[in-house]
């Protein structure tokens, strides 16, 4: 008899967003998410330190990601500017994502 363990490490998708996500750039963002969804990651980490604006279409990509990759997907928004945090909070998305200062 032999004994074996198949250990699986977490699959982490990382994206860095800069500037403004409006309806046009949101399409690019969404395409990127779709590509990553094919890998079925456990975590989606968005580095957004230099993101200055996210529009309604941009926020929807986050919801799309959750729906596409399953509700177990943990989304991390890393080091967002105050205005981005406010937008996320006012529209109630903060319950679906984790806003963190840094991702370790």
């Amino acid at each position, binding site marked *: 008899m032999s004994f074996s363990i198949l250990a699986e490490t977490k699959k982490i998708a990382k994206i860095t967003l800069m500037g403004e996500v409006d309806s046009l750039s949101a399409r690019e963002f969404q395409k990127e998410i779709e590509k990553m969804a094919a890998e079925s990651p456990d975590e989606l980490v968005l580095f957004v330190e230099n993101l200055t604006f996210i529009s*309604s279409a941009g*926020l929807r990509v986050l919801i799309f990601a959750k729906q596409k990759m399953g509700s177990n997907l943990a989304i991390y928004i890393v080091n967002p500017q105050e205005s981005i945090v406010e937008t996320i909070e006012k529209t*109630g998305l903060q319950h679906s994502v984790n806003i963190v200062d840094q991702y370790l």
Partner: protein
Amino acid sequence: MMVDNRIDYYPTHEHEGIKFRRGHALPFGATMVAGGVNFSIFSSGSTACTLVLFERGEALPFAEIPFPDEFRVGNVYCMTVFDLNYERLEYGYRMDGPFNPSAGLRFDKTAILSDPYAKVLGGRDTWMVKPDWDNVYQYRSRLAFEDFDWEQDHPLETPIEDLIIYEMHVRGFTQHESSGLKNRGTFSAIRSKIPYLKELGVNCVELLPIYEFDEWENSRQNPVTGETLVNYWGYSTVNFFSPKAGYAATGKFGMQVDELKTLIKELHKNGIEVMLDVVFNHTAEGDQRGPTISFRGLDNKTYYMLTPEGYYFNFSGTGNTLNCNNPVVRNMVLDCLRYWASEYHIDGFRFDLAAILGRAQNGAPLSNPPLLESLAYDPVLAKCKLIAEAWDAGGLYQVGSFPAYGRWAEWNGKYRDNLRKFLKGDAGEVGDMIQRIMGSPDLYSMRGPTASINFVSCHDGFSLYDMFAYNEKHNEANGENNNDGANDNNSWNCGHEGETDDPAINFLRHKQVKNALAILLVSQGVPMVLMGDEVGRTQKGNNNTYCQDNELNWFDWSQQETNADLYTFSQRIINFRRQHPVLRSSTHFQYWDYVGSGYPDISFHGTKAWSCDRSESSRTFAFMLCGDHAKQGVIKDDMIYVAMNMYWGGLHFELPGLPPEKKWYLFANTDMPSPGDCFVPGSEPILENQHEFLVGSRSVVILIGR
């Protein structure tokens, strides 16, 4: 993707570089389809239509595309336009046709018109930010996403008899500095105050109009203070499908749809339903002197009730009357409500001046109004509460006779009037009050107590505290020489007009507020509490604060402490109702013991047990509910005894005897100073004297038998 391969998603036409093709007639409005947007607009009598496209916020359109003749189906113009930036787009229509007011035709191709089916409206994005009056297109149709992440949420479907409705104004609830919030006056701010609503115990919020309206409409200066008077209440709809952008902290980003849906989802998570106050009786276009925003320019004689000379019927008291029983308009109302029920998960609707919805196209009242019937039997609205304000400004008063189709409930204006008169000590009210506390079987014998929405105050009229602080209205700040607002307030100032330092008067006022809330919350039917009445909110005697965007209307959160006795009493009486199903029956009393408990379901008493003085001079009565009859005998509850003495002297009430194993406990006695005026439901103290209770002057006593 499959859908991209359909050949009807390829353009066939081009105009100044913009590609488009023949569209689909239904659904009306602007709908996102693969690669483009389908525009569909109804207009009868017009000769031509042009689609006008703007980049968001730009003064002039970037394109105007005339609809080719072959794009018209019946009276509907439809077109699919490709490659539009759906987040940056604003659109409208020019409608060409005859201008002949006496024939009801008011086409004007120089005007750019809003789409009545627009799901978002731009132009008034932030509350009271001064608009550009020279803008050629003031209220700009925009597109909305319909992909909100509702997760498991759905309308709560709370049985209507279990509701405790809280009528509130979105802005007024949190705009006062004392709310301590950052985004004051918004949907988002209400979300932060959900713990307060939960603690208070209400399980339904009824929002004053949140359809897009223009707060600047008829704005003017307060003659006394110079302050700007605005359209604060919002009973003047610009668009029926769009939420008010100025009520959203994210309105300036065009995210009001998401913000409102998030609020509704959170309220639902906390067991609180959301009801909308909807205004389908008129629009913001006013009479012939008013602005042309949408309906007037699209199809004046379809959307409005017109006199034979082509002027506007004014059953709403605001200039025009929406032609609700025209089949086209009726369908728009239906589409609108279905949209709010399905896309926003709204739990119910309260229809402003709903008697108008039962008038024929010539204004005559209908015995079987098609609109009301359609709403009552609509499959999408099947679980929504439908509540009518069963009167209009044209003299039609239908409390008790509103066409109900087994569905409609009513704001019970008679409940309000009888209770107010009874509270101020009028003689001859006991007979009517007995009907009111039973859910008004005299008005709703066939419809049950759930047809009766009981209230003693609402946005329209005195606040509850002011009802006992003012004999007369004081509406000078509205700038109409105190001529506006109702004169039949049935109020009583308790001995001094306005604020006073007299402790006896102030005690009596607080007692009267508690009396009113106590009776309201133990009456059968559905109670509605006005925002702020639970903390003694005052409007300084103004009974028509529609134009006051200031402290007259804002909820002052510091009153939760300064009037802590009122807040505690309100909170406990509301939770008392929630704990006792015997107070919330869906059927009328039968006045006999149909479960074999030894007591009838309801019995009436007075200073003598089992004897109720209903004579003209009586100002006093008591009733007892038998808990074994709760919910038609399905649930066991305690016995509840309520004594009401609106006489100016204290009276001894003989208590009805209980079964040997039960004793009387005191829940509330409004004659006592706080904290002895009421107890935490479930931990009421036992009465020393089980046979008699001295009920103070103008006081309510509530006992529990268990």
